[in-house]
């Protein structure tokens, strides 16, 4: 019987055309009604749309070999959809909430053929590709969010490039075209600088500021303020939009804040460990202490002014070690106000910009955990959530 009906089904299957193309499908009379949340009427296929970016959503990159950036609703822990994103791509979210921008590099034959660098533009509600904006180049590196940032008004996209010359490609997102390449030797980690352009951290310990990047693109360097090779600052900085202030953490746990502007002013640093009642951590070996670390070590909630830092016990130069605790730093008070223990070490952290924030962390095995931002209580656990960097839509 199965060989018979199976084969005949095949003909039907090959013709079971979906959706509006086919109403003939109603020719099947549904069987008697029975309890089922989905009903037992013949159905048509359709496609969902989703809301514009929400304050409670997390965006999680799949990982090295896993394409896509999954959107999770923090409250329910459910997936909303996936933004297509290829290996080593970076995502930026339109501040107006209309688009997701993916900066990516695709070869015409997978691992060979013609290199194609582009910003792929996705509609935020249909998640459909709107257009591609070709760009000349970009850096190929994983686990970074600072290689593709937007101006506060969403007009300009700044894409870091390393060929191996260091530069920034400027894209006009309104006109959807590449504008120019600004050479920026010795610097990386693009920092928003509203009304000015953008800034970056440099290997000479300074911050560089690029004024009018789409125009004259003047580059100025402030004074050296950190030891770029001795005690590097994690590129994974935080940014407080309302205060127009960037917050940095160094490998030893020095916390710097920078008031952005044409000439950013950097504060004298303070020690994260001292803020928790410990001695400051040092750069020399054989000194075991709590250090910040992992792939995405810090996240910031502007509403509370709290910085969430992944910490682990170790020696200096263990800056990629996964975090065993989250230290919650009140940046203004220079005080660690909470320490949240983690059930297992995690490699990335992000926090929503809500008054009662949610935390997302993930580990090497792609396990994602949504935690209460105050208590650290685990609210949801998501298998194969993605093992890459985590983003949130910026708060208002």
């Amino acid at each position, binding site marked *: 019987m199965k060989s018979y009906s199976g084969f005949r089904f*095949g003909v*039907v299957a090959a013709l079971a055309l979906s959706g509006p193309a086919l109403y003939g499908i109603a020719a*099947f009379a549904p*069987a008697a009604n029975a309890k089922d949340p989905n009903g037992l009427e013949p159905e048509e*296929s359709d496609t969902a749309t989703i809301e514009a970016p929400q304050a409670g959503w997390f965006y999680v990159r799949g990982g090295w070999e896993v394409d896509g950036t999954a959107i999770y609703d923090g409250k329910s822990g459910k*997936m909303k959809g996936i933004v297509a994103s290829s290996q080593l791509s970076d995502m930026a979210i339109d501040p107006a909430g209309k688009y997701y921008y993916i900066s990516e590099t695709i070869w015409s034959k997978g691992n060979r053929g013609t290199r194609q660098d582009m910003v792929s533009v996705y509609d935020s509600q249909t998640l459909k590709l709107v257009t591609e904006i070709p760009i000349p180049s970009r850096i190929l590196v994983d686990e970074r969010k600072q290689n593709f940032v937007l101006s506060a008004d969403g007009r300009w996209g700044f894409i870091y490039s390393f060929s191996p010359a260091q530069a920034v490609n400027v894209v006009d997102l309104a006109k959807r075209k590449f504008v120019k390449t600004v050479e920026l030797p010795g610097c990386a980690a693009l920092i928003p600088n509203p009304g000015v352009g953008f800034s970056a951290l440099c290997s000479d310990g300074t911050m560089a500021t690029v004024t009018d990047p789409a125009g004259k693109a003047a580059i100025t360097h402030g004074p050296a303020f950190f030891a770029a090779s001795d005690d590097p600052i994690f590129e994974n900085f935080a940014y407080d939009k309302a205060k127009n202030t960037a917050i940095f953490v160094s490998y030893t746990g020095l916390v710097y804040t920078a008031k952005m502007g044409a000439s950013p002013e950097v504060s004298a640093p303070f020690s994260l460990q001292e803020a928790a009642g410990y001695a400051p951590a040092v750069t020399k070996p054989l000194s075991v202490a709590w250090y910040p670390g992992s792939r995405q070590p810090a996240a910031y909630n502007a509403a509370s002014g709290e910085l969430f830092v992944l910490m682990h016990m170790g020696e200096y130069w263990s800056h990629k070690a996964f975090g065993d605790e989250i230290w919650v730093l009140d940046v203004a008070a220079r005080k660690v106000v909470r320490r949240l223990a983690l059930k297992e070490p995690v490699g990335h952290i992000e926090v929503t910009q809500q008054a009662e924030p949610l935390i997302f962390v993930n580990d090497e095995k792609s396990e994602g955990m949504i935690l209460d931002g105050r208590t650290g209580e685990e609210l949801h656990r998501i298998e194969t959530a993605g093992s890459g960097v985590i983003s949130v839509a910026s708060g208002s």
Partner: protein
Amino acid sequence: MKKFDADAVCEKLLRKQAGRTSRRSLISRLGIALVAAPVFPLLPVSRAEAAKPDRSPEAKTAFARSAQTEDDTECTYWRYCAIDGALCSCCGGGIHTCPAGSEPSPVSWVGTCINPDNGKAYLIAYRDCCGKPMCNQCLCDNTDRETQLYTPQLNNDIIWCFGTQSMQYHCSTAVLVGGAE
């Protein structure tokens, strides 16, 4: 176990399709399969058995005996008796809804699943949603009456993304097509 009239359905479907141009190339390819179909001899056992559906508990597969009708984000949901892949219900879509940005394939493999609430069998079209990276949520691989590539419409390994803009596999839906009796 299944006795709807496939020939009549095919004819209806074809007539509905005849006037449409957008899927013409697809149809012409399907035409090949249709024309070829009558060539195959049917095993003599088939018609006899088809006449006597047996829905007794003893005749149910292991899947059917433990299937449920409450939660379509679990692999045990009754319609998933032959699904393979990520459940669209866990990916921002639904039982017959593709997640945003993906597109349902107009052709699919099928399963015949028994609804435990009424004991009746239904024809389920497992339409893949295509054009987004694989959704790695709720991976299931149920295999009731699942066969090999020489019977492709009953094989759940094939990337069933035909006539879609992109052939990238995203997730699978389980669309109720009709009663299988």
